[in-house]
């Protein structure tokens, strides 16, 4: 039998499309990309088993006529793993949507802060000249700036909503202080760690 060109072409197409989607910021596209890549890997594993043949069930008369069973076992395992992880990613996308009303990956606040900072030594700096995000907490303004817990406009999630970047992190901890959770959970906003 001759090797088929169809499977390699399909694998290449799936990989290309999958990687392209995975590079997107939108999480739904990332998930679709992951699914395509998973299928690409599975087809690759299948084609690694060589040419198609009969079902590999004992007893066999002609060993060369049967298919290689190992790649099929590997593919089954890989499918189960891909399935489980996809479910987790879906749950994460949903949670992200609930929290920030957006399924696009946000910029990292601390990254931006470090990248845009002008000098390293804060000790010698006048607080008046500092970026608000670099200033220490407790200036009394950030609490009002954030979404209030009793605000009817704010959906009922127990976390600061709708604010990207450093302001959010500030508000989160300021808010946590306001409700008195800080002594127990100094991280601010991570108040639910129990082991």
């Amino acid at each position, binding site marked *: 039998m001759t090797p088929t060109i169809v499977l390699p072409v399909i694998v290449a197409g799936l990989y290309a499309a999958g990687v392209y989607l*995975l590079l997107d910021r939108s999480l739904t596209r990332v998930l679709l990309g992951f699914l395509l890549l998973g299928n690409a890997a599975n087809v690759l594993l299948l084609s690694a088993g060589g040419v198609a043949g009969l079902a590999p069930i004992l007893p066999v008369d002609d060993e060369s006529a049967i298919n290689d069973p190992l790649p099929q076992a590997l593919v089954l395992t890989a499918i189960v793993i891909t399935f489980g*992880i996809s479910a987790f*990613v879906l749950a*994460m996308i949903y949670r992200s949507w609930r929290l920030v009303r957006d399924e696009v990956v946000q910029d990292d606040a601390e990254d931006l802060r470090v990248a845009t900072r002008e000098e390293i030594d804060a000790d010698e700096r006048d607080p008046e000249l500092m970026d608000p995000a670099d200033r220490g907490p407790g200036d009394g303004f950030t609490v009002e700036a954030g979404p209030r817990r009793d605000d009817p406009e704010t959906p009922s999630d127990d976390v600061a909503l709708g604010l990207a970047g450093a302001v959010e992190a500030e508000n*989160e901890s300021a808010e946590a202080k306001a409700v008195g959770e800080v*002594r127990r959970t100094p991280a601010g906003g991570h108040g639910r760690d*129990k*082991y």
Partner: protein
Amino acid sequence: MDDVIRVLTPLPVLLPLLGAAGALLVGRHPQLQRTLSIVVLSAVLAVSVSLLVMADSQGATSVSVGGWPVPLGIVLVVDRLSALMLVVANTVTLGVLVFAVGQGVADGDETDTPLSIFHPTYLVLVAGVSNAFLAGDLFNLYVGFEVLLAASYVLLTLGGTAGRIRAGITYVVVSLMSSLVFLAAIGLVYAATGTVNMAQLAVRLGELPAGTQVLLQSMLLVAFGIKAAVFPLSAWLPDSYPTAPAPVTAVFAGLLTKVGVYAIIRTNTLLFPDGALDDLLLWAALATMVVGILGAVAQTDVKRMLSFTLVSHIGYMVFGIALGTTAGFAGAIFYVVHHIAIQTTLFLATGLVERRGGTTNTEKLGGLAKASPLLAILFFVPAMNLAGIPPLSGFIGKLGLLEAGVAVGGVGPYVLVGGAVVTSLLTLVAIARVWGRAFWRPRSVDTADEDVAEVRPAAGTATTTAEIAENRLPRTMVAATAAFVAVTLAITVFGGVLYGVADRAATDLLDRTPYLESVFGDQEIR
């Protein structure tokens, strides 16, 4: 003796998995759950230690799971390297579990906790790590990686706050990519050789054309390089680790990247001993060290600074691997052991700093050395160790690697030796900045004000400074961290013994016959 090993070998995987099931069942009884997890991990540690003792005295052994003859079935292989890694991994996971339990008890309110999933997930993580270390089969290694990664996804996004979901997304997507590259590599390896048994691969891969070998090796190295955070595949790490809860970050930082390093060691010794990509790895090691440490110097947050030093010090291990000599591998293995312990300790100490000071931002911290001298010691000792101050274990590990580099000689290794020294100095700079800011300088007026005026009365219960000093650092957490500091000192004191084991492990690795014979016995491998 063989029967004992046959029984013991699967236990580091089996016990945590069964324990995870048990912990799920008793999820409504936190006290029971905690006891169960600690008992299970203590048992696993005992098993690992006895495996190491046996492996070190009699050499490598293997077990065919389910009684299927090699190479049809899955084999678990215990040699000096995997046994050593098991012992270190289980010591760290047990210690961090005690720390986490201490934190859970201190924070209270377990009756309606939605987070009874922590213990089962944590045990699954341990099972995955053990499986990856024991796997004698490429696909089983993949399964081990997936098990530990799936557990790590859950642990990293624990509680599902906005920051953690954001960090978790980066982490999950990057890990998925590495898993898929790994899976594709397995498919290609199978297509080329017709087996996934690592001992059999060791022989069959060598018969392939050189170009095919380089392709397969580079795919495996990319997959493991992402997991080990080797530059330029390391950008995900400082982004995703710092947001997780302190114990989770500690165990991830200590352990998970080292599983990647372990897989790289296996790839470069057992599967592809030719060293075709060693030059490339050497420069990757230099870039990892330098880029990582420059990132660390720029940070103001302790956790982020530590994450960057973690990336940077992975470079030392890759340096040892890339040298390709016994001394290089021995240095890399010793450095892995040292670094697992030290990085975990530092992250746990940082967790205590966060509880004590309310933040990990060095611009807001201050005066901790005076406020909490014990905490200062717990941070200072491992910090100096990380920077490689003699006579601590970081110095021993770095010295071993530098000697190995000089012994090899040539432009590349000498540049790397220079880079390693500079990185070490810059680590000291980064660590000293944190120490100076958070511990040494006096607490500034406005931060103190904020602490007293807003936080403490709002907290409701404790009002005096003394009360808070006691309340803030639960004894179990401090004890667990102190135990870790003791372990890192023990690595220093017993450095000679440990280096001996690492040296014998490296000799075995380069020799390859102990591994092959343990799997196939007297059979001829085809």
